[in-house]
């Protein structure tokens, strides 16, 4: 026997509607996979990845020719490239092109959110493949731990998607703001309250807040600890799941859950107002 909600609808009906909302949003977001713009993104990201490899080899040779003891690892550049590509993809897929995110209801938001995370993750697959292909062609073998890297990519996409959607509830410029937030505002803030003021160690901060590590870049690269870029653990060639990668995963997952919850909260609050 079906129960009855406060608004008089049966629970079954309400559940069905909610699932419909979820399904509609999820599918419509997935449809973006087939857009021309997405296809262009795939091609451009593949080209960029390939070019980064060429660039890194050229830089390595150049630096070596100068006699410096610096080896410009391919992964160093990729570590910067991958999160940027993820952010582009997530911010594009998750946000409205010209307008605010006007979704209402947990299920609709969840549908859009999960769809966006899925699309973003799928879009990164060709990039990973390209990396492996180029590495193999170059004779360096496969340097990446694929499953681990991809798992971390998904949770990173989850964070960025939540940020983008959250921003899109307030501003039409969510795409740009997501970039600023992820790559400039948050890292700068972290840096200001951390190393710049000598209050908290940067590594400790990076252990709790995923921050793209551009500030600490020294020599060919820099990496202060567990940051967003360790999500691109691309750079780890290990067969198991090392503790720091596992920790990264948990941390990113936690942030994604929190941001998603805040997104729901903000949306509902706005609706109530």
């Amino acid at each position, binding site marked *: 026997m079906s129960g009855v909600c406060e608004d008089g609808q049966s629970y079954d009906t309400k559940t069905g509607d909610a699932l419909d909302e979820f399904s509609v949003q999820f599918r419509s977001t997935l449809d973006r996979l087939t857009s021309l713009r997405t296809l262009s993104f795939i091609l451009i990201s593949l080209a960029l990845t390939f070019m980064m490899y060429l660039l890194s080899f050229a830089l390595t040779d150049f630096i070596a020719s100068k006699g410096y003891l610096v080896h410009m690892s391919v992964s160093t550049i990729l*570590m910067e490239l991958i999160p940027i590509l993820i952010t582009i993809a997530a911010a594009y897929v998750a946000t409205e092109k010209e307008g605010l995110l006007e979704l209402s209801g947990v299920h609709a938001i969840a549908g859009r959110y999960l769809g966006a995370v899925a699309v973003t993750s799928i879009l990164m697959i060709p990039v990973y493949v390209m990396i492996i292909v180029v590495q193999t062609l170059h004779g360096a073998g496969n340097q990446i731990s694929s499953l681990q890297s991809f798992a971390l990519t998904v949770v990173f996409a989850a964070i960025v998607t939540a940020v983008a959607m959250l921003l899109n509830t307030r501003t039409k410029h969510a795409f740009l703001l997501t970039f600023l937030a992820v790559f400039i505002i948050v890292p700068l803030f972290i840096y200001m309250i951390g190393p710049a003021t000598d209050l908290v160690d940067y590594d400790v901060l990076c252990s709790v807040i995923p921050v793209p590590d551009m500030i600490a870049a020294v020599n060919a690269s820099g990496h202060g600890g567990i940051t967003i870029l360790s999500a691109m653990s691309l750079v780890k060639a290990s067969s198991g799941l090392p503790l720091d990668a596992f920790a990264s995963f948990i941390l990113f997952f936690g942030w994604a859950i929190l941001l998603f919850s805040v997104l729901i909260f903000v949306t509902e609050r706005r609706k109530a107002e």
Partner: protein
Amino acid sequence: MKKAAVAALLVAVLLATTAFPMLDAAEGNDPIFNADSKNDILDIVTRAIADTSAVLELTSDYEENKKILMEKLNEILKPILPSFTIDERNFDALASLIAGFAPSKLVASHFLPDGDPTFSKGHLNAGFDLPQPLRDALNIEDRKEGSDSQYGELGVNLSDTISVNATTFRDIDHVGGMSWAGSFLNDYSGVIFRLLKADNPDVLLGKDLGDKIIKKDSVYRVDTALSASIYIGMNAEYDEENDVLDVRMIFKGSGSIDERMDLIGGQGPDYIETNTVAREILVDMNLTMINPSSPNRTLYFGLNDFNLDFYYGMAIDDVYESTEIRASGLTAVFKGMIVRVIGDEVIDYQNKLDYDQNLINTASEGRSEAMNKLIAEARGNTQFEDDSDSTLTIVTGIVLAVLGVAILLVPRFMKRS
């Protein structure tokens, strides 16, 4: 049509991704990159060399000697590893390997630095039992009377290349016999560096420095996460007047190492005091470890002063057994340098573990007891992780997730109630 094309593309990509593990596994087919402990190139090479009674006619010309040695090595290895060729890129690492594992058979001539081998204050005692022709070629003198060295002495000037700052190091203030040993270990999570007295492994060296770098009863992890250059310089000068050896250690790093150790520009108590008695030694060398964002965090390692420059395309795995410096014995022993010649820079970690263990076992022979203990301790600490950081991260992640769920659910529960 467009959708079908994109879908086909994605399916193809997805299928390709399933090949990831296969690609990983396929690496194992390459004896160079992923050999197991039995057929690893290191084993192969060392065994081959050990089985070879090669006599090389070397000259005093470094480059010429290098060519001769390369040629000989290729000749030895060709039947065993037809796909592997020793060339300019991997020669140095391999040569040091040879020096470590087969000292009596072949020794790379590159231990003779370029330039005029003048040496004013003392000698570096190179711990290689070299065949006489090679000793002659390398200008290695016989052990001097009164020297504690059990080896011949390599009369070369090694004092010109130190460039890192030594200003913060304290002079020796008292005399006493002491030995010290350094060990450099790394795994995928970083480098372990410890110093201890070789003759008393329970005593860690350097109070202030020790506080920073060496934590007693623990293995300090220098997180070389993605980029780090560590410069570890050991500088010793013989004070003729007082008959005292001034041994100074220089640590200098960049990247994350700096941040962790506060070693930039001499910040922090980056000096170590030690003392020893010496009569005729001047060890002045610059030991550089570089981890240039290596995906597998393999360290690149070089002893500049010995022309062991194998930053490029070379790597030393996990265990650095190369630096056992016994100052009290007036010997600077570079032995058991564990080098894995891996072509470009690929190591499969799982294989690496087995491989390393094998190396450790192999390299144990002839290693000092203190060093063995050090290695054993380090290996016992399997993860080398900075657990506190990871724990903090995990706890933070869980707390955030719980908080998120609470934000999501609590208003609903309140609404219902």
